[in-house]
């Protein structure tokens, strides 16, 4: 159940955009006129502008007993729903693979058990290897399907959206605050609130960088857990876009391959 978070990182780390701190994106005005829903959908759209992508990320944890513990994984992405994740660190997760084809379609191969298992969706309640990502974070590949947005306010740099959970959405957050950069129409900060209105997490994305393929991506994402004074830093190590990934990668066949 440690894998879902990686799929969320795909969104978090891969964001095509124009220059940061520059003039507002020309499309912004039109989107604001259409409404907050249109703006949020554009943010979602820009979060993954590729057919396929291969990402390698490293997570480092700080706070409490964590003084730099690391996780590392490679994620293969195809479309918005298909993810195939291979773990490299920590060593006891090495060889573990996960295929995700939707919020309720998750299969995991644990090498020690020599077996592929379907993972029931209750696993979303579990945290991810002590990181600050919850499983709900990981399944929120796009925000617009689960949240209704309204513009809270605008600053010189950002449009701040308040997202309220839609009825029937099976998520543990009642509300989000999303800071959308006017120049790039990308979310560079998200605050997470529980049912009582208390802020419980904060995600900050930085180091917007032009990748070799020409698009831009945040190379660093930090998730703060406000309830336990703990943070997880996610570094983007490798980013390949629009490479050929066969459909069979997102199947049980890929999971059972190799040691």
């Amino acid at each position, binding site marked *: 159940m440690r894998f879902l978070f990686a799929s969320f990182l795909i969104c978090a780390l891969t964001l095509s955009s124009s220059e940061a701190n520059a003039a507002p994106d020309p499309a912004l005005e039109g989107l604001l006129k259409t409404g907050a829903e249109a703006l949020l959908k554009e943010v979602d759209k820009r979060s993954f502008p590729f057919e396929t992508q291969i990402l390698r990320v490293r997570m480092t944890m700080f*706070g409490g007993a964590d003084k730099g513990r690391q996780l590392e994984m490679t994620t293969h992405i195809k479309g918005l729903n298909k993810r195939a994740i291979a773990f490299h660190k920590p060593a006891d997760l090495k060889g573990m693979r996960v295929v995700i084809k939707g919020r*309720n379609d998750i299969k995991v191969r644990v090498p020690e058990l020599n077996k592929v298992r379907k993972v*029931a969706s209750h696993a979303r309640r579990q945290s991810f290897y002590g990181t600050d990502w919850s499983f709900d974070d990981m399944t929120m590949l796009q925000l617009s399907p689960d949240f209704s947005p309204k513009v809270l306010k605008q600053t010189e740099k950002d449009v701040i959206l308040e997202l309220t959970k839609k009825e029937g959405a099976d998520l543990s957050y009642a509300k989000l605050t999303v800071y959308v950069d006017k120049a790039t129409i990308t979310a560079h900060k998200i605050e997470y609130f529980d049912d009582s209105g208390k802020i419980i997490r904060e995600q900050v994305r930085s180091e917007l960088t032009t990748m070799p393929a020409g698009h831009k991506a945040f190379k660093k994402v930090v998730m703060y857990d406000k309830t336990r004074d703990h943070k997880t830093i996610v570094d983007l190590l490798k980013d390949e876009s629009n490479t050929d990934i066969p459909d*069979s990668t997102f199947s049980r066949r890929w999971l059972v391959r190799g*040691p």
Partner: protein
Amino acid sequence: MNLLKRKFVFLSLLTALTVLWSGPSWAADLYLRGYLETDLRMAIGGKKDRPPGVDEYRFLRNENTARITTSMGTGDVQAVFDGSIVYEGFPRATTMQGLTNREDVDPVRMESEALYLEIFDFLPSVDLRLGRQVMKWGSADIFNPTSVLNPYDLEDPIKFGEAIATEMATMRWSAPWYIEGKDEAIFEELSLTLAAVPIFRPGMLPDSALYAFTESTVFERYANTQTLLDLIQLQKAYEDGGGNILFDLGVEPPDTSLKNMQYGARVGWTLLGIDMGLMAYQGFDDIARAERVNANAPRRDPNSLSESAGKALTGIPDPLQDIDATMEVVNTIPSYEGYDVLTEIQLTFPRVQVIGADFSASLESLGGLGVWAEAAMTFHDALYRSIRYADYPYYIEREANKDAFVKVTAGMDYSITNWWYTNIQYVHGFVDEFGKENLKDYIVAGADFKLFQEKVLVRLFGISQLQDKSFLLFPQLTLDYWQDTKIALGGLVFGGAADSKFGGRETGSNTIFLRGRYSF
């Protein structure tokens, strides 16, 4: 393990490591993981049915293991090796000669989980795997009645449910198509796996399993015919009279002829998010049964100085014909001291055919509750047993008719909070149970508590047999404070009457353990 084998092991590992660290251009196709583990266990007593003459508090295991899993290859070809060197930690030297032998002073063994060659797209959408491998089937946790290609490794109760790798050829076809629905695929992951296992490999048993055949009180529970019970009654009389009870256990695995080759097939698919599978197998059950029993008459110790040294006691009627008459005579003899009573038992593995089905799903209407079920129907021929007492003619009894029995595992799991995971299963037919009349019912339940930012895992698991109320508890505390390192402290505690499933001596001692593992 002889010197040559030891050298081979070390050379293999050294070669693998050298190749990995040499960094040639094709090094990207090499893969390595593994761990170093230390495992110390101690019996803590408290079990009602402790074998006589055995210290209550004693060390049971003192192993240090280095395990390496590596693969190499290019493109669609991959060679995989997974092996361990285990230093056993208990010197075996009992003679002066032994003290000059490193293998006796510092015993070491090698284990291998995999050693195979894999070719992807051997045929279109078909992957071929040749060699030593573990092929696990089924959707349940640990108790998988449909997973029959590899024998169980029951040697280590803490690693219960592990399988022994077997040399086999497997071919898996994965359908390159699926039926797309609105939100998710309606039908996908159709696959067909075929397996052929040339040589049968029996299951690995713990030392304590010997009691099932060598202790009359334990053997009695496994005796499934009146004839065996009569023999046990006779054996007890000799034992009570001071006789020296001896056993000679022989194992006769199926020979290596083509007709004994094992075959298996499984079809799997996902329909509306539910994983399903059907399987079939033809081969042998991997837990041995007694097929021939030769109960010898009490015989004077051959080394004794008496005139009757080595001579058998005569005049005892055949217990297989009339146990009452036999016992009448046996009970008139005041003592059997100085007599050896030898029973020779030949163990074999019954031929079986198995068909089975399994599924697993996530119930969204119940908060994503995970559910699964797995059932396997085993068909076996009529089972016969040859029994003889002394020089009387063999008596052939039918242990079981040609019949079939069904083993079932059904369970569910749920995460109550982000730090509290629960799992419960109903099991009909334990791994060592065979035959319709012998299957019992069990509840396997447990919970994981992840505490202190998941640095501490408290695991409480247990198994209870519903018929005799005996149980097994498996508490464990795992510390994960250091990168790639885990320290585990736990226990294995049996409860129940001395003649119960888990209270009996054949299940082993109450144990505490301390294990440390560094993974790389």
